């Protein structure tokens, strides 16, 4: 069972904060990998909010191919964060050539495109790079999106963080998701490391996904090019969220109604019962059966956490206005925000979605039995 930690803060934070919280919970991960998602960036990248940032791992050869490809598209490098890799990686960490974090200027030809079209092209570019990399193994691409950095590597989280010197000044973010991996039944593969990302939406999960195969079949047949991968059974949670928000046009509060719909008796009493019944029917193949805790972040930097219907995974959310964190275990939260009011800590149960909006003023608990905030 992996360990998860997510933080949202008014002040930019170093990812080391999240990695340290993971380290406190180290009994729960086996050092097989770490994944970081950072958005609402601080440091030098704060000035480039609109520029798409490419994150990934490249060989020298892969970098040449990348440059060629991006130039052909008309992308110009605007800023790069160079992570110089020391010679001797720690135990369990493979030797890599380049950890890439690079911001680009949009091609001139893309000017004037609608947001939707722009987002679609960014997605297609990432997928194209990913498939180019899969042919030869010289590129691994995590994200290509404005104001988002992702770093993933095999090995123990703290060792990896020290090895890559993630405490550097220029690496700062107001929203950080971090996962320490406990490898289960799928092969160790960087694409299987959480968090997963699609068009500004990121999420990470702990626990198995017992309904993985039917969900994967459903998503991959929606005719949407981004629903690929699935080296990990948890990737579907990110895609279901994307499907709920982007394809169905529903708010975050509806996510839980898709993955863990209410039972029929409760639906009868729900103010949006008829709609939710339809949703339950048509999204039946997206019902997750746990045991999972899902933490994630939306394109507007809203942070959230939900549990499966059985609530068989731990999670606690706490903090103070301006700084909130969600953690698999209490000790992770204690390590990150020791001076909070612990009485206000909240452990989401089987009906709850805990949401921290980008104003970071409060943790809003939304229960599935409440009316959905639907546009009129």
């Amino acid at each position, binding site marked *: 069972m992996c360990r998860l930690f997510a933080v949202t803060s008014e002040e930019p934070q170093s990812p080391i904060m999240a990695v340290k919280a993971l380290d406190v919970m180290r009994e729960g991960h086996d050092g097989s990998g770490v994944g970081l998602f950072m958005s609402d960036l601080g440091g030098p990248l704060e000035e480039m909010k609109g520029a798409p940032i490419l994150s990934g791992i490249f060989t020298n050869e892969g970098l040449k191919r990348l440059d060629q490809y991006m130039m052909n598209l008309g992308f110009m490098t605007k800023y790069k964060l160079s992570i110089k890799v020391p010679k001797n990686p720690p135990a369990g960490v493979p030797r890599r050539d380049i950890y890439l974090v690079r911001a680009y200027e949009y091609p001139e030809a893309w000017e004037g495109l609608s947001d939707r079209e722009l987002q679609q092209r960014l997605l297609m570019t990432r997928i194209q790079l990913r498939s180019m990399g899969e042919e030869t193994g010289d590129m691994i691409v995590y994200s290509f999106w404005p104001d988002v950095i992702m770093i993933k590597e095999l090995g123990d989280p703290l060792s990896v963080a020290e090895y890559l010197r993630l405490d550097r000044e220029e690496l700062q973010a107001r929203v950080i998701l971090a996962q320490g991996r406990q490898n289960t039944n799928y092969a160790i593969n960087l694409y299987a490391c959480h968090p997963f990302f699609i068009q500004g939406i990121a999420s990470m999960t702990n626990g198995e996904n017992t309904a993985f195969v039917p969900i994967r079949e459903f998503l991959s*047949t929606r005719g949407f090019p981004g629903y690929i991968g699935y080296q990990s059974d948890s990737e579907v949670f990110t895609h279901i969220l994307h499907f709920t928000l982007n394809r*169905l046009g529903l708010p975050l509060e509806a996510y839980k109604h898709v993955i863990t719909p209410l039972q*029929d008796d409760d639906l009868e009493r729900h103010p949006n019962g008829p709609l939710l019944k*339809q*949703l339950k029917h048509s999204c*039946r193949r997206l019902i997750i059966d746990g045991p999972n805790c899902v933490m994630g972040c939306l394109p507007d930097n809203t942070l959230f956490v939900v549990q499966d219907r059985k609530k068989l995974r731990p999670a606690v959310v706490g903090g103070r206005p301006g700084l909130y964190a969600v953690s698999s275990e209490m000790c992770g939260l204690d390590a990150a925000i020791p001076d909070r009011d612990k009485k206000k800590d909240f452990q989401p149960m089987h009906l709850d979605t805990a949401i921290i909006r980008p104003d970071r003023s409060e943790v809003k608990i939304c229960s599935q039995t409440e009316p959905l905030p639907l546009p009129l």
Partner: protein
Amino acid sequence: MLSNGTLTPSTLSVKDLLWQIHWEKDKCTLCGRCTAVCPVHAIELGVHRKRSVRLPALAEIGPGSGGSNVYEVYHGIRQKTDPAYACVGCATCSLVCPNDCIAPYRSDEVDKLRFHINRGGQARSRGGRRNVPEFAGGSVLDRIKFIRISMLTDPALDAGRHEFELRTLLGRVLPPEENLRLYREQGWIPPVREIYPLIIGGMSFGALSPNMWEGLQMGIAYLNEEIGMPVRMCTGEGGCPPRLLRSRFLKYVILQIASGYFGWDEIVHALPHMKEDPCAVEIKYGQGAKPGDGGLLMWYKVNKLIAAIRGVPPGVSLPSPPTHQTKYSIEEAVAKMIQSMYMAWGFRVPVYPKISGTSTALAVLNNLTRNQYAGGLAIDGEDGGTGAAYNISMDHMGHPIASNIRDCYLNLVKLGRQNEIPLFAGGGVGKNGKLAANAAALIMLGASGVQCGKYIMQAAAGCVGSESDRCNVCNVGLCPKGITSQDPRLYRRIDPEKVAERVVDVFLSFDMELKKIVAPLGRSTSLPIGMSDALAINDADAAQRLQIQYVV
């Protein structure tokens, strides 16, 4: 053969028969119950002559006082050897014998009877089931194992105490985007029923005795109204008793229309008086037991009541044509028929076709996916039961269900329609008693639910049929248990209340077994349709064919 008998090509001895009656003279009280009860008159009172040699006592020995023969007559049971009266092995004689002195036994070799049951050029027709004696290891469905046991990385659940929601949908489910759009625009959304995934498959009022039918209906009503399990039952072809059509219990019934349209006159007349809509309408294009052949209710069973409901004269055989009269192409027939049926109930009742398992099932399915009104597809595999069919149809025709349903499901997945058109599988589910395991295997192969008939007959009413040519007289109304007879002297043997009790027993125990399968897989909040990663079989070819894991 008696000394004054004639030897003809069809003269058989008891040794040539499939079922041989063993009768013990010492125990027999000559009460006559067995001969009275035998549905096929295979046994009769036998008058036997016996010779015993009497020797004189020692004191009487003298010249000319040799032994003498004493001839005595004794009475007992004689088994007829005329093929027309061959014992069917139902063992009703054993059931009524007060002294356990009579029982049928299967021949120790292949019988000779099979070569002689086509006299008059009539190929053998019968009731019952496929006669394929089970080989060791069981059917493909029996051999499928559930291997993805939740261990440590995810906890297994408690089948006894956890909350489960194991329902399935019957009816056309729209793609999510379209569904929500139509909901917002208040457009027409196809009707969908949330039902229990085990359906009692189509067995007509006519094939089954009134007591059996009533028992099933009562059991279903109890399950729905007292236990809260939304179990549904299909009528088969032959309509519905008028009172049921006008009662609230109609909502638990799937009305079947088949090529003979029997009983639909009554249904149409009842339409204005219906308090409830039926659960669904099933259009039967084929069934598993006699694929490509129409239904058949033989004249023996068409009594006044059946004739009245079906709108035919009593005492005539009712063979339905192999196909619907209006059908010259699937698009035409299916679309038109589905549309008409929808219109009859104001587009509030899902309509779906049922076909025999066939290698052309994919063509049918592809057609249905393009028809937005098709509410599902039921496929009945070769092991499907029947009321009456030619022996050849039952034993040799049709497609096994496992690969048929799998192909259809994977095809839907390829099209991205796997949640839109539910597949229902039938045909041999639970034929060896493993109802829940077979059903769960089919669900994980891709079926949204399963239909079963034979299992219900055997478990809820005590049908004695087997896959070794036992009994099989359902078609001629001689059912020794009264399950499939229209003769009151026979069907009074079956108590509807007791059938209802057994139906409830079957569904409750099935439900527990289903939970005992899904809970260790970590599933509880939705029926694991298509969860093929949980399946495996110890046969590499079958594994490859079904695209599941091979394990040994």
